[in-house]
């Protein structure tokens, strides 16, 4: 518990130390990494799935997979955060593959109460609803690129590695996705 208390303070957050500790099997260190990265993984998953229950389950699966494979993680240019997003992305892909449902953000708007709870911190719910509706019309890889770049703040190089594309191709992909969105807003 001593380690956990030390690691759980965000002020002292040192990803490298925590990752090394987690790699050597320290669950408390992994817990601190969870606290740091879970909100982002949750948000990314929530924007890609249709319900809060599924999101919670997928986030749990993502971190469980991460724990099971963290000893194999090596910093080869991609950050630990990017590694986690890759696991989350694959978990979501598997989810849609097994559930045979369509990956759309539009389906996310099915539950207004839940949406209200999630968006309680947002300034304009209507604006976000429209945004989600438009993002949902993009293809899955454009959605991923857009969300990872502007919501999760990952750089082009990291996103390129995750999507297995060149950096330039990723920049073009993101630019095209933004243009598509703008076009849809302008049509409104």
């Amino acid at each position, binding site marked *: 518990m001593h380690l956990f208390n030390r690691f759980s303070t965000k002020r002292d957050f040192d990803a490298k130390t925590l990752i090394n500790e987690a790699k050597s099997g320290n*669950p408390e260190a*992994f*817990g601190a990494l*969870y*606290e740091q990265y*879970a*909100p982002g993984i*949750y*948000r990314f998953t*929530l*924007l890609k799935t249709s319900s809060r229950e599924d999101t*919670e389950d997928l*986030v*749990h699966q993502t*971190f*469980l997979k991460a*724990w099971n494979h963290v000893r194999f993680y090596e910093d080869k240019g991609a950050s630990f955060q990017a590694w986690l997003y890759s696991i989350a992305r694959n978990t979501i892909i598997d989810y849609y593959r097994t559930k045979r449902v369509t990956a759309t953000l539009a389906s996310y708007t099915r539950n207004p109460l839940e949406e209200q*709870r*999630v*968006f309680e*911190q*947002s*300034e304009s719910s209507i*604006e*976000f609803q429209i*945004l989600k509706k438009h*993002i949902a019309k993009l293809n899955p890889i454009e959605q991923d690129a*857009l*969300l990872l770049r*502007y*919501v999760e*703040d990952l750089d082009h190089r990291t996103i390129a590695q995750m999507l297995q594309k060149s950096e330039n191709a990723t920049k073009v992909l993101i630019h095209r996705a*933004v*243009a598509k*969105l*703008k076009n849809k*807003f302008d049509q409104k």
Partner: protein
Amino acid sequence: MKDIIGTIKRLKHLEPDKVYLKHSKKRLFLHINPPAPLNISLFTLTSSVGICSLLVFFLFSDNTPPPPTPLTSLNKATLAQEFNDIDLASKIAQVKEQDSNNRAIDRAIQNLAYTGKPISQDVIIQEETNDKINQLLNELL
């Protein structure tokens, strides 16, 4: 274009509530760090159980042999049922008769041993019937 990007960026405000995060972390910890088992080895546990069982067995078990119970297989009724095609009563009568004859033979042999008289014809006849007795007994058993 910048307006669109700014709008997308505002999705960053989406965050799970703290109650969920706490709960999910606990759930994750249950999987990755299950509660430690009791610090008793399997060997210690099984030996203790074994010793206790033996103690209970020796304390409460009755070491005196059980009273002899009549063999049901030798009951007259049971035998009759088993050998229902044999006239048991007549056979038993024959055996009894033969038994008394045997005793007569024994007495005759004892007499012979004392008197040195030659074996009478009766004894020879009796020995022949002895074979019949054996045969009868074999049939019965």
